[in-house]
């Protein structure tokens, strides 16, 4: 339960950053926080009480490991997350070079 609460709180704070903050880097930070929250949520859904990591070794029987599927998903998600963050930040750098501001409501070309 604690984990669900923690991930929900992270998602909420991330969305709050997106909704309230006008600074572009702050917004990307918010996305990053949402990312962490969603990862935590997926992993905690896959957790099974009293079982160990999904690595079959001598002494660990298949009936005694947690769900590996969400972990594989999250592994993918983390790598995608960093690449998307880097791409977004490089676009922000470009925007800053052009407009000399990070305030999203002053960047007029975002409006069509």
């Amino acid at each position, binding site marked *: 339960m604690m984990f669900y609460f923690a991930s929900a709180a992270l998602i909420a704070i991330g969305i709050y950053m997106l*909704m309230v903050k006008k600074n572009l880097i702050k917004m990307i930070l918010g996305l990053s926080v949402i990312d962490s929250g969603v990862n935590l949520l997926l992993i905690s859904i896959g957790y099974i009480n009293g079982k160990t990591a999904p690595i079959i070794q001598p002494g660990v029987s298949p009936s005694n490991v947690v769900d590996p599927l969400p972990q594989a998903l999250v592994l993918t998600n983390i790598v995608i997350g960093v690449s998307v963050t880097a791409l977004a930040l490089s676009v922000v750098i470009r925007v800053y070079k052009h407009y000399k501001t990070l305030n*999203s409501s002053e960047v007029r070309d975002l*409006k069509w």
Partner: protein
Amino acid sequence: MLEFLNPMLRPEWMISLLFIGALLTYFAGKVSSALRTTFAIIFSVFVAFLVFLSGSRDVLTYWRPSASPMGFRFVLSINALSWFFALMISMVSALTIVYSAGFGKNTEKDNAFYGLNLLLMGAMLGVVFSGDMLSFFIFWEIMTLASYLLTTLAGKRAEKGALNYMIISTAGAYSILIGMTMIYTRFGTLEFSGLASVMGGADPMFLLITLSMLGIGFAVKAALAPFYVWAPPAYSEAPDSFTPVFSGALSKLGPYGFTLFMYGIVGLPALAKMGTFRGISDFGYIIALLGSITAVIATLYAIAQDDIKKLLAYSSISQLGYVMMGIGIGTSIGVAGGLYHALNHAIFKTTLFMGAGVLIYTTGSRKLSDMGGLGTKMPITFLTMLIAIFALAGIPMTGGFGSKWLLYEAAIDKKFVLIAPLAFIASVGAFLYSFRILQSAFLGQLPERLKGAKDPSPLITIPMLFFAGLLVLFGIAPGIPLGIIASVESYLGIPALNVSTYSVYLGANFGAYNAFTVMTVITLALLVALALFFIAKKSRKVGQTDTYMAGEVPEHHVDLYLHYSMNFYRPLERIFAPYLRNRLERLYDAFGSGYELISEGIRRIYTGDVQHYVYYVMVFLAVMILAGWWWL
């Protein structure tokens, strides 16, 4: 003698010849302009000749592309109906290309002009020859595009008109597409021959919807009442050597579409299932009523025009209204009248637009008030336009009399108290505005600067003389065109008109219309009038320049205020001006600005601020969640 041409008398040959010719012409223009013009004339006249030779023999071609995804096959066919229209189109297009060769330079880009003209001719032939809806639609779109591009060739000032034309045409094309899709989903075939056997059995509601959908598209091309707003600017601003085709040939495809779908595919019995009004179907009655209303409105506008091309453009709309009236009435006389008037209109309006082109070329202006007294200087132009105007006004001795006669008979026959008077009013108006052209351009005083005007080159006058001759021929022997139309009618399953070469038998109520008798009487009357004129001659001949200026030569600035064709019908215009003020264009404008307003409102939601988008998403989520809790 011409048997060696027989293998070429097939629709695919004619169309592909024109398409190849279009390319060849365009690229030949890069080499030399004389070569280009020769190519264009050879290709178009040759194909027109082929169409003429092919007669109304039934030719059917199937062409199934190997990768056709849904089992469509492209069908091209020549039958009585399509041959009649193809003849009209190819004649007008080919002779207009010959005519435009007479001018040194038609537009800024003459290579494109000739190429597109051939392309347009091929596409129009494709529309009438196509035997299935898919190829019909494809050729229809090629035609629209080619004519749009040709209109824009006139330069900057034509852009707005061309854009209007394109937008309304596109809307019409979508409407056709919807109708087509509905038909395909219901019957699973797009071939006319297959549809003709199943469409008659469909329920009336379905027929009404599909026919209206298709009809909107055709009505746009035919410039019928609510959709005619594109026509005056497009017709009048298009290049002078293209307008004859635009008005003479291209606009006939609207009536063609109506004829094909109402009588060729759906058929009279199925139309009658939708409900009848005095013996004709309601759908047809509405078309006829719209046609007659269009005729009157456009005539009123035409009377008020000083711009010769605009005048002729409104006149085209009104004459097409007549055609639609006849086709809508749908009796034997009505359809014959409509088709005959379509043919006549193709001929005389082409001649008039050609003449207008010559006048504009000579005087350098489109204003009637800049012309005058050209009759003695340009006798051939005067003569041909005079005959064309006789035909337009429905004066005996020309084909126009016969077709209008048939149309009136058709309306009176069914006792349409709304349509018949409207048609009469429009006819009187037609006389008024055509007289204006005659009076302003050819009679009256010759302005000083037009002293050197003379008839144009034979390349220009020969097509005009040819058409004028046709009009006179039809006036004496209406049986020639009406014989073809009678075969079209029997092909369409409408009782065919009873014609011989010189007379038309219109049924027990009306008896026969014998053109030869009419001709003789009129000629005699003319001779008597001439004799009276010479015997009782009291008038004195005066020079062209000294009627009311006290012998002074009118200067240009005097022309501006005192030209007799200024406010030609001022008293008449004063009567109906208040009714013309609420123009149909305003409705479209209001619609446009309302649409713009709504779009602007929607645009306010898309602020471009990322925060607002996040807000929208979250508010939507919250509302959905709360609603879910509430309802579930």
